[in-house]
């Protein structure tokens, strides 16, 4: 049985089913086609985001995050940007967590397979202008910038700016149809709330709209994501090293206004990222539709008129760091949602301030005329000289942070003092129970994590097949 149909669960189910195993895939959310709503829209928030997108890591500042709740999980709502795990990150996981057999060369076949299966590639044509601005600014500064490939299939058409169009290769387009074709059964709208060991099998307790069900399974792979996986395990009494090491990428945004038009109704996903200061810091461009622009400008009262008059000249950019702190995921008695706590540390707030200043410098180099940082009470920036007015440490109570990357709540490895699961996802001390999603990642990887999640999911599922 596989719990969760996001990137980890979908790959697991597909690998197991295609090797002849009897697989049942349970997904809490609905089964909706990729095209059921416009990407990054209000409708998508309501249809496919957990709690309408209103999920929050408590702390100062609070860190809103986004989780999907639909068949295909996060792959149905994210940008589809793909990275392999950086080698230095893998080396750290081996050194500090005892992760075995996870060198770049050992992971190479898994990355290569995922990249083939998802049509991972760069854009076969011009990239969005808002994204190219980031590239221009980075080149002016002499900073390392790259175009990040996406899992995407281009269809030969283009938007009004010539940017090629196509379809995101989410789980519902790729691994899930293959899993179903291989005999996997999918139960959407099925929320698992308990796992109980009963002799040689697991009893999986779940709720559907029609009522409660209990399913016996020889082996269970839990792949609900970095928040829901530890939540389920802890509710089931499985707590060792579970839900106490949540990591994320704290992200601060800034709106830039240019003289020329950089934005339009079909801008699409920006694909450039600046990696000069990686692994600690990355810069990128966010979805910059009018609602997203207006949201990012809330800390600047009265500037909503800027959106109304000049949104085509504006875009949202972000500075992201690898957070050093560890958060917690806990079950609250009587409540169906977990409590997530994450306290952004002072050093992180300092590093975010430095990152914001660097990003602002880059945007001025790219020709930005005005910048609006996501800090309540912060000045609008009209020139590089204004950067001295930015705080040296972001004020915790007035800064808008967010994240879309969460992981590490059930780290894998052989160190029993740190890890919830072994190097291949088997929960320490328990037979027949595995984790196979972002919660396994030992630390924040500093890059978009889905490539890592899928490669490890494939690796771990194949390892299981070889053993049993």
């Amino acid at each position, binding site marked *: 049985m596989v719990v969760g149909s996001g990137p980890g669960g979908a790959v697991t189910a597909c690998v197991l089913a295609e090797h002849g195993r009897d697989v049942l895939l349970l997904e809490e959310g609905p089964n909706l086609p990729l095209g059921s709503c416009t990407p990054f*829209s*209000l409708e998508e*928030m*309501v249809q496919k985001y957990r*709690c*309408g997108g*209103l*999920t*929050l890591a408590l702390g*100062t500042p*609070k860190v809103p995050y986004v989780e999907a709740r639909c068949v295909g999980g996060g792959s149905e709502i994210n940008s589809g940007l*793909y990275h*392999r795990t950086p080698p230095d990150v893998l080396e750290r996981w081996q050194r500090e967590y005892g992760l075995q057999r996870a060198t770049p060369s050992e992971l190479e076949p898994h990355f290569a397979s995922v*990249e083939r299966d998802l049509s*991972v*590639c*760069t*854009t*076969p*044509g011009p990239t969005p202008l808002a994204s190219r601005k980031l590239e221009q600014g980075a080149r002016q500064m002499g900073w*390392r*910038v*790259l*175009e*990040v*490939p996406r899992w*995407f299939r*281009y*269809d*030969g*058409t*283009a*938007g*009004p700016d*010539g940017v*090629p*169009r196509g379809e995101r290769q989410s789980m519902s387009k790729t691994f899930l149809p293959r899993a179903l074709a291989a005999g996997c059964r999918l139960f959407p709208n099925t929320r698992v709330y308990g796992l109980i060991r009963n002799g040689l099998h697991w009893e999986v307790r779940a709720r559907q709209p029609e009522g409660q069900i209990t399913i016996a399974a020889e082996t269970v792979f839990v792949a609900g994501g970095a928040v829901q996986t530890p939540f389920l395990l802890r509710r089931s009494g499985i707590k060792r090293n579970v839900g106490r090491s949540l990591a994320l990428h704290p992200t601060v945004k800034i709106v830039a206004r240019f003289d020329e038009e950089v934005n339009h*109704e*079909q801008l699409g996903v920006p694909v450039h990222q600046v*990696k000069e200061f990686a692994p600690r810091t990355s810069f990128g461009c966010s979805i910059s*539709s*009018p*609602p997203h*622009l*207006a*949201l990012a400008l*809330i800390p600047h009262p009265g500037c*909503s*008129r800027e*959106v*109304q008059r000049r949104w085509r000249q504006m875009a949202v950019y972000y500075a992201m760091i690898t957070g050093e702190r560890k958060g917690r995921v806990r079950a*609250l008695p009587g*409540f*169906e*949602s977990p*409590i997530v706590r994450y306290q952004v540390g002072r050093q992180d707030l300092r590093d975010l301030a430095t990152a914001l200043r660097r990003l602002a410098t880059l945007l001025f180099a790219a020709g930005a005329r005005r910048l609006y940082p996501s800090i*309540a009470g912060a000045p609008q920036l009209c020139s590089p000289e204004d950067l001295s007015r930015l705080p040296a440490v972001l004020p915790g*109570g007035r800064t808008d942070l967010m994240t879309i990357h969460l992981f590490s709540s059930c780290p894998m490895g052989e160190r029993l003092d740190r890890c919830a699961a072994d190097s291949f996802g088997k929960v320490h001390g328990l037979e027949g129970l595995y984790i196979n999603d972002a919660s396994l990642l030992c630390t924040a990887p500093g890059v978009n994590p889905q490539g890592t999640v899928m490669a490890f999911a494939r690796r771990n599922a194949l390892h299981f097949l070889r053993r049993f």
Partner: protein
Amino acid sequence: MNGFIDRTLSAICYSLCAEQAAGNEDGLQPPYNDVVRFVAGQMQRMPAFLRLGVRAATLLFGLSAMGRSGAPFHRLGPARRALHIASWRISRLGPCRDLIRFYESLAVVALYSRPDWTRPVLQPAQCQGQGRGRPPGERGE
């Protein structure tokens, strides 16, 4: 009590939308029932423990207007409503600021998502031949 909270929610949404629309384009003008429906729906979707806190804070917000203006928030005129929102927006108390920020975020997203906000979608141009991007490693880094 639920009715009081719902009326306060509606009044907050109307006030915040009016701020956004002041002197500007048709697409942002009242009525704002669509925004209120969206915000109320989001309130129902949010985690229960957060919803309890937000509803309690909304109740307090609505009642606290009586101390200054003699009437609950939803019975005040536009100018007094704006003042009350402004006082909570700049409050030294984090939960007060958070409440206004919560409503403002949702109202803004709903308002700027209105269909009449954008130009008509243009027809996609045809590429010159079917393109396939290069695999990772061949471009960029």
